[in-house]
């Protein structure tokens, strides 16, 4: 249904050659593809209908992300349609509704500026927002800001007097300088400096000193969708590998008839199936009981990181030498799997969450 429709569109509009072509042209983003997705209602997948969205829910967002992952469709879907939209939905204001409708119609893209160190650690923030009259001045540096090189707006997590505060500001505001990072996955990311950047009270998303009320649901939505994308990625890499086992001959026979490779492929298929269950569960929990979804989300992200990395490593090994060549697509899967494993919390981070929630 939704998955089939999405697959049909993506095979046309964003096959893996799309990302390869952008990379070869030195680009990280294709605005035309984003516009098409907006017309199909995908950018508004989590936007309420009254703000012009299709409001299909998190399970549907995960289905879309999974299909995008299969061919590594290069879009700011997670940053904008999932993370920013979920954050904005936590706030009941005309401003937030207006922002949501711009996400739905595809005219505005977002990036989440949260990381400062080399690991995901949202509670440790050095970037400050100092009181300045009725507003604030933001100073500090964010890194690994995914889609931060081109996004129109930034969600910036900053330290305020009594805690953490989330700001929603245009990316071209005075004092902001963006340096694109040449990422291994050929996608967009930037390091962003904030030099006494002016922000008003209006720019605060949610309440001052209470960023997590707004950010936590947004992070969980993003983590689940990223896990779904990585599950799609694993399926894409695995499908390619099984296809190769059925066509490559050595010693006069198809290499897929060798038990050593059959069992590795079968084992990997099992891992993919188990991870797929965790993804489905996370999407359903976010839709049905978001307050209690943390365990399901971290479980999904941990499993997906692990499975995707196994799928690409096995993929290269079972392809042999050709798997190492740039001409072949496996390298794109491998590099994206590494970035996806790190973004929004790696295996260790989410395993820690699971352990805590399971009582140890």
């Amino acid at each position, binding site marked *: 249904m939704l998955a089939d429709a999405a697959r049909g569109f993506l095979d046309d509009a964003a096959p893996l050659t799309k990302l390869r072509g952008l990379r070869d042209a030195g680009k990280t983003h294709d605005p035309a593809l984003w516009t098409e997705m907006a017309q199909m209602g995908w950018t508004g997948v989590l936007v309420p209908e009254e703000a012009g969205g299709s409001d299909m829910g998190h399970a549907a967002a995960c289905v879309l992300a999974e299909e995008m992952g299969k061919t590594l469709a290069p879009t700011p879907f997670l940053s904008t349609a999932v993370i920013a939209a979920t954050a904005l939905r936590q706030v009941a204001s005309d401003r937030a509704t207006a922002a949501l409708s711009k996400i739905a119609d595809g005219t505005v893209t977002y990036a989440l500026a949260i990381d400062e160190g080399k690991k995901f650690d949202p509670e440790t923030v050095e970037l400050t927002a100092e009181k300045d009259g009725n507003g604030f001045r933001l100073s500090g540096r964010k890194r690994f800001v995914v889609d931060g090189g081109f996004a129109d707006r930034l969600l910036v997590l900053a330290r305020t007097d009594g805690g953490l505060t989330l700001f929603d500001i245009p990316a071209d505001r005075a004092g902001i300088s963006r340096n694109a990072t040449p990422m291994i996955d050929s996608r967009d990311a930037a390091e962003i400096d904030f030099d006494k950047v002016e922000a008003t009270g209006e720019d605060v998303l949610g309440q001052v000193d209470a960023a997590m009320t707004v950010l936590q649901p947004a992070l969980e939505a993003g983590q689940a969708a990223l896990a779904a994308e990585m599950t799609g990625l694993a399926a894409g890499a695995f499908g390619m590998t*099984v296809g190769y*086992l*059925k066509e490559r001959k050595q010693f006069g026979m*198809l290499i*897929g*008839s060798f*038990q050593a490779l*059959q*069992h590795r*492929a*079968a*084992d990997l*298929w*099992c891992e993919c*199936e*188990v*991870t797929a*269950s*965790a993804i*489905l*569960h996370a999407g359903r929990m976010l839709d049905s009981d978001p307050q209690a979804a943390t*365990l399901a989300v971290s*479980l999904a992200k*941990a*499993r997906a990181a692990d499975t995707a990395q196994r799928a690409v490593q096995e993929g290269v090994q079972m392809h042999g030498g050709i798997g190492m060549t740039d001409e072949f697509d496996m390298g794109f899967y491998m590099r994206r799997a590494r970035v996806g494993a790190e973004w929004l919390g790696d295996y260790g981070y989410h*395993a*820690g969450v*699971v*352990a805590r929630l*399971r*009582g*140890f």
Partner: protein
Amino acid sequence: MSDDLAQFRATIRTWLEQNCPEEMRDGAVGEDSTCWGGKNWNFTSDAQKIWLERCAAKGYTVPTWPVEYGGAGMNREQEKIWLEELRAINGRLPLQSFGIWMLGPALLHFGSHEQKLHYLPPIARGEIRWCQGYSEPGAGSDLASVQTRGEDKGDHWLVNGQKIWTSYADKADWIFALIRTDREAKKHLGISFLLIDMTSPGVSTKPIRLISGKSPFCETFFDNVEVPKEQIVGTENRGWDVAKYLLTHEREMISGSGMLAGSARSLGAILAEDGGLDEPVLRADVMRAEIDGLAFGLTLERYKDQAEAGQGTGDASAMLKYMGTELNKRRQELVMAGAGSDALSWEDERAPHWLRSKANSIEGGTSEVMLSIISRRILGLPG
């Protein structure tokens, strides 16, 4: 619909409250805590006997079987509710048996109406205990090469040969067995699925001691055993179809051992209680096992839901069996590591469980056989 289910839940809850004896509400899962049934069964308490009888009268021992065959006719949603409510009061299952898990589903699928009426209700009431006669000394992973033969003697077969790994054969009343009834045909096409009374003249059993100490496994011998012709399930020489169908149920049953590692109990919490998780490498291994266990539990649920929706698990049961048993072996290793020298005495129950778990990835089809099934039938790799 959900109103109906809420009503159903309330009915079950009230019934359990009024009928489950206090002694049966201790959540015990030891070998004899749940009744295995059969003529040789010694009830461990009056409460165990009463609990079985009350459940059997309602069909709750086999909730999803049709009422006329001793079940309660529940659908999967209702069965889930029954199990959830039973778990909520920490209640023991009223009955467990190979009749319920293995033969029952095969009879429901392949048996005649008369056979179902004859064999299923005694299983549901816990009156007849069954064992499985599949493997032979020369037929392990290559199960279809069974040699125990049945000669056609007109109104009966004359059975001679030997079965191995027949769990609880020394306690069972009947055995369902794979018997070669055509020695000329290709090996898969000369096997019949026969039901044999263990008290028939010529049947004998001998226990096998395993590395875990005592074990339920036996060797079972057939020496000129007469088996009436009507005691066949399915068509003569097409017993392999029944065997395969039953194996998928056996695999799903065994994969349930991995379920214990999933949602039910947190291994990490258990080990942390007595300081077993202070060591960082072990802690990391337990975290991984916890994550994989939870995800596997969700997978088991997902497949059961698919089966309920009419999309049979079939070949995919090989995945559940493989993942579930490998997971359980990991879990048992971690239990031993967490318990340290506390678990090294024969008086501690952890060591036998750990040793016994090593058979999980062998019985019911080895992990390697499961992987081969997946690679050929699901991935379509060349045979």
